[in-house]
């Protein structure tokens, strides 16, 4: 039993923080928001190559660093602070874990090294649209090696040269008949419709599949349990990002409250201001504890995974939304301007809530598993 990071892990955290502060701070994220890709290839190369972040959780046999989910969660937390990383979450978290849990060893050997090196940017589309993790939410069909259907709001699909797409055998229902397919970024029959919107700092696209050629990964028709695990892990990864971002929002708000003077004193000396900041701090510390535990559960592949995802994502969503709101509010009128970064966090916080299934859906599942829901 040890609820603390090792010295090596703390050093790793510090090195990622330095890198993000120097090479991918929020000012850069803001500049890149207006660009086509949303990331700078040279910086991506450094993040993947020099720091080895994209291969953190990839085994050494497949060209990765061979670390666990714990180190991955540290990277997500640190990138989250500046809303940085671009396609990191989709590639190093979602796609790597989907391949590891669904694909055969030979298929992993074919794909993982390029993901680990950062050469391939990949993404994962399990459900037809973000929502509760139910297999019936997969209606895309796979027929004779071609995919048909639509996946909405796929993370970084426009940047991906490899799309991992869940589809089902025609006529199948429920968890049966679901498999994962690899689709090349430039495939015929694949149309990407960029979906810019609420969150300016994460690239989303709708993926239209009209007979795109696809290679099945793993065994036919039985990928759902592994994909459900990947989605739960994704929620835990998202919680790490949310905790980093929430911590940064609170730091910005507190720094302002210490500097800004009104009525002849720093506004942070007023109780009403302090108490708002501490409400955000309380949620943040709860969320941080839950996210660390979630990362550990994910690193163990434990049977508590669903519970950990529900707990971590639910409290981290609340913490990030609260901190992002307080960051605007405590900055006053300045916090409401386009120029200030607060709205970038506020937008991201709301988007993170629904990106991989709403916490409410997680909690409904939790209530059911705890025997708290009356039969209808």
């Amino acid at each position, binding site marked *: 039993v040890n609820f603390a990071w090792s010295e090596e892990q703390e050093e790793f955290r510090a090195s990622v923080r330095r890198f993000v502060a120097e090479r991918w701070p929020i000012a850069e994220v803001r500049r890149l928001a207006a660009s086509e890709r949303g990331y700078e290839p040279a910086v991506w190369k450094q993040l993947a190559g020099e720091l080895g972040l994209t291969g953190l959780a990839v085994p050494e046999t497949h060209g990765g660093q061979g670390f666990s989910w714990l180190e991955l969660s540290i990277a997500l937390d640190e990138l989250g602070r500046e809303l940085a990383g671009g396609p990191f979450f989709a590639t190093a978290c979602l796609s790597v874990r989907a391949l590891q849990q669904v694909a055969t060893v030979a298929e992993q050997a074919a794909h993982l090294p390029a993901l680990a090196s950062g050469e391939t940017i990949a993404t994962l589309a399990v459900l037809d649209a973000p929502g509760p993790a139910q297999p019936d939410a997969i209606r895309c069909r796979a027929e004779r090696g071609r995919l048909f259907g639509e996946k909405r709001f796929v993370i970084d699909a426009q940047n991906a040269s490899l799309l991992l797409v869940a589809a089902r055998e025609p006529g199948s229902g429920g968890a049966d008949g679901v498999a994962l397919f690899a689709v090349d970024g430039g495939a015929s029959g694949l149309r990407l419709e960029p979906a810019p919107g609420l969150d300016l700092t994460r690239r989303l696209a709708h993926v239209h599949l009209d007979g795109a050629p696809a290679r099945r990964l793993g065994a036919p028709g039985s990928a759902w349990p592994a994909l459900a695990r990947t989605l739960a892990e994704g929620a835990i990864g998202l919680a790490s990002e949310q905790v980093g971002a929430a911590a940064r929002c609170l730091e910005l708000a507190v720094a302002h409250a210490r500097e800004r003077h009104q009525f002849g004193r720093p506004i942070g000396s007023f109780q009403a201001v302090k108490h708002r900041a501490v409400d955000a701090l309380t949620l943040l510390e709860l969320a941080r*504890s839950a996210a660390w535990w979630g990362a550990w559960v994910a690193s163990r592949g434990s049977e508590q995974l669903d519970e950990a995802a529900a707990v971590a994502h639910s409290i981290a969503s609340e913490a990030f939304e609260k901190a992002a709101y307080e960051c605007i509010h405590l900055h006053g009128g300045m916090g409401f301007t386009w120029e200030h970064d607060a709205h970038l966090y506020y937008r991201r916080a709301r988007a993170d809530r629904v990106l991989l299934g709403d916490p409410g859906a997680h909690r409904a599942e939790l209530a059911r598993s705890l025997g708290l829901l*009356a*039969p209808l």
Partner: protein
Amino acid sequence: LDFDDSPDEAAFRAEMRAFLAPHAPRQALRYRGGHDLAATLAGQRAWQRTLFDAGWAVPAWPREYGGRGLTAGQRQIWSEELRRIGRADSMLGGGLHMLGPTLIQHGSEAQKTRFLGPTARGDIVWCQLFSEPGAGSDLASLATHAVRDGDDWVVTGQKVWSSFANHADMGFLLARTDPSLPKHAGIGFFLVDMRAPGVEVRPLIEMTGGNHFNEVFLSGVRVPGENLVGGPGAGWALARTTLMHERLSIGSFSALEPFARVADAVRDRGGADPVTADELAQLYVRARALDLLSARVRTQLARGRDAGPAALVLKNAMGDLWLAAADLGMRTLGADALAASSAFEHDFLFAPSMHIGGGTEEVVKGVAAEQGLGLPREPDASKGVPFEKLPRSGGAR
């Protein structure tokens, strides 16, 4: 980061369980209203003695005072296992969780040797003598005074909200030793015999109908000089240590336990509607996260590190959780909540005290903001002003 037991830790847990299985008290020692406090105390004392004799009473204390030199992980296991059997030491908490840690940090060798062992064994029951009618959230404005007389100090004043003072053997008391100094500077920390002449205890009945609290009147009470802890002006620094430990102790209550009581009631009634079920799940999420936060803080402290802002938000988070659990519990009962002694009546009536005792919600938030976030202190009109020159309200009623 590892939430599993290492092989050594598994062996430690097994050893503890082997001890607890035959020795654990049959009935709950926890105070849940309506009990005979004297009987509760007798039960808690007997159990504490059993723990002490086996070396399990205060394993986090230094070895020479009954401690065990446990690792951070072992301490975590120790508290988990005691929780599992429904440990309760509420009436001994003043000594075990407040005075003990304060003495370990600030006491003289003689004071440690004399008091720590008997405190760990449950032989000395302690009460806190801090708050006064005129000094609540502004504790440092306290007016009870201690005047030196030869080797002794003579204490006069009134204390209030002293839990279990009517059952205590000793009290740890803050009194003003020099009113010509600013309020924080002229305070001493004394150890007072509750049976000394001049000590009068009057029980107060709380809104639950029970009696934790007391008023304590001190009229020319003689306290030997050797019972002053630290210097005559060191009291405020010591009080801060005591209060920090009090808040940690409240923050270390089990959060999942109040949830579990509500969940049991919900399941007994065949489950909840989807809206209420979501509230219950939210309560579970909070409780889980809070137990994790509390474990994280205790790990840091056991390693001798500053637990940072996390330690400062625990107490209020626990208060929020208890209030939410009591609310959901009462709602679960429906019209049965109208009855006397319903399953959640005590929780419901007790809950408001969580945000008052041990520092109000507002005071604790102020501490978290200033010490945890580095926000500037509120300007204090009494700063630097000698205590005797301060305008005061209601202190000497």
